[in-house]
């Protein structure tokens, strides 16, 4: 993408891979929240890109005419991996290192359509030591929609390695 859509600016804040920002030091205690990333309106352009990368021919991700023929809302459906990607990005931003996420498991519960607002979430559930590193297990999720209409799109767990002693 040559131009960054304004609606994703919040998702890119605190991006540890840019080298331009300082990630916040993770607060290390069970129950601590993983800082949320919000996408106020999921854009369609990245769905088209991901369809190519995944070699996914399913037109529901890019062709609104096909959605109309299927009697589905004429808003492209985001790929599940993109939804997972938002959650992984929140963990990477929190950890401050692009290779910090060691493992994750997610269940897909609902679709995200173009224009939907989504917000990542997470909470520390376990902390263990591994030499100088700390290994943190988290519950993670992605919610869709504002306020009372909010529902869960995916949920699961992740394991993140924090390099060096912290906390």
């Amino acid at each position, binding site marked *: *993408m040559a131009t960054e859509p304004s609606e*994703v600016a919040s*998702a*890119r804040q605190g*991006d540890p*891979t*840019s080298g331009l920002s300082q990630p916040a030091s993770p607060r290390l205690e069970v129950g601590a929240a993983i800082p949320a990333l919000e*996408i106020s309106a999921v854009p369609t352009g*990245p*769905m088209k*890109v*991901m369809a*190519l*990368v*995944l*070699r*996914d021919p*399913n037109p*529901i*991700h890019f062709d609104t005419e096909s959605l109309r023929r*299927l*009697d589905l809302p004429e808003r492209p*459906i985001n*790929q*599940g*991996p*993109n939804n*997972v*990607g*938002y959650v*992984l*990005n929140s963990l*990477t931003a929190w950890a401050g290192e*692009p*290779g910090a*996420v*060691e*493992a*994750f*498991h*997610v*269940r*897909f519960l609902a*679709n995200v359509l173009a224009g939907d607002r989504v917000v990542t979430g997470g909470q520390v559930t376990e902390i263990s030591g591994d030499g100088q590193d700390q290994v943190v297990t988290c519950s993670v999720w992605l919610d869709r929609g504002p306020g009372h209409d909010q529902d869960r799109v995916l949920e699961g767990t992740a394991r993140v390695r924090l390099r060096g002693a912290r906390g």
Partner: protein
Amino acid sequence: MDPTTDGERVGVTPFASIESLRERLIGVRLPVGSYHITAHEAWLAADATLVTPHPEIAHPLFAYIAGICGMGWDLDHLFTQMDSSSQDGPMFGELSVEQQRPLRVGETLVVTGEVTEVVRKQGSVGQFDLMTLTLGLSGEDGEVAAVVTNRFVFPRWRSPSGD
């Protein structure tokens, strides 16, 4: 892999009994495949998740991408093995990734795969089958870099055809 059909079109492909599917598929190993993480695809995939790409470390989604794109079956073939097709609305149910190390931009991974479970369940809207596919990614040194477990959902809104 997302639902593409309405209720009337789901279940167009005749499907076998769960006993037959299990006997046919559990333990089947996929042909060995490979996946090369190109710099431009690493950049594009990370950007598609709305994060600034890293030049050397692939986005953690690449374990999934390398597995699904590099495995020895394409998705249409996988669906056929389960007596299904994209017209039947198979869905992506669960994803697990266990990485031994971060994947690197520019590396080539060998992808092995095995069908590890097939079960039939009853949901609120009808019957469905779950297929678990476990993929192994090995680096150029032969060491396992990641294990990816995908669970696909196959709606079975009508009775099996028998064998």
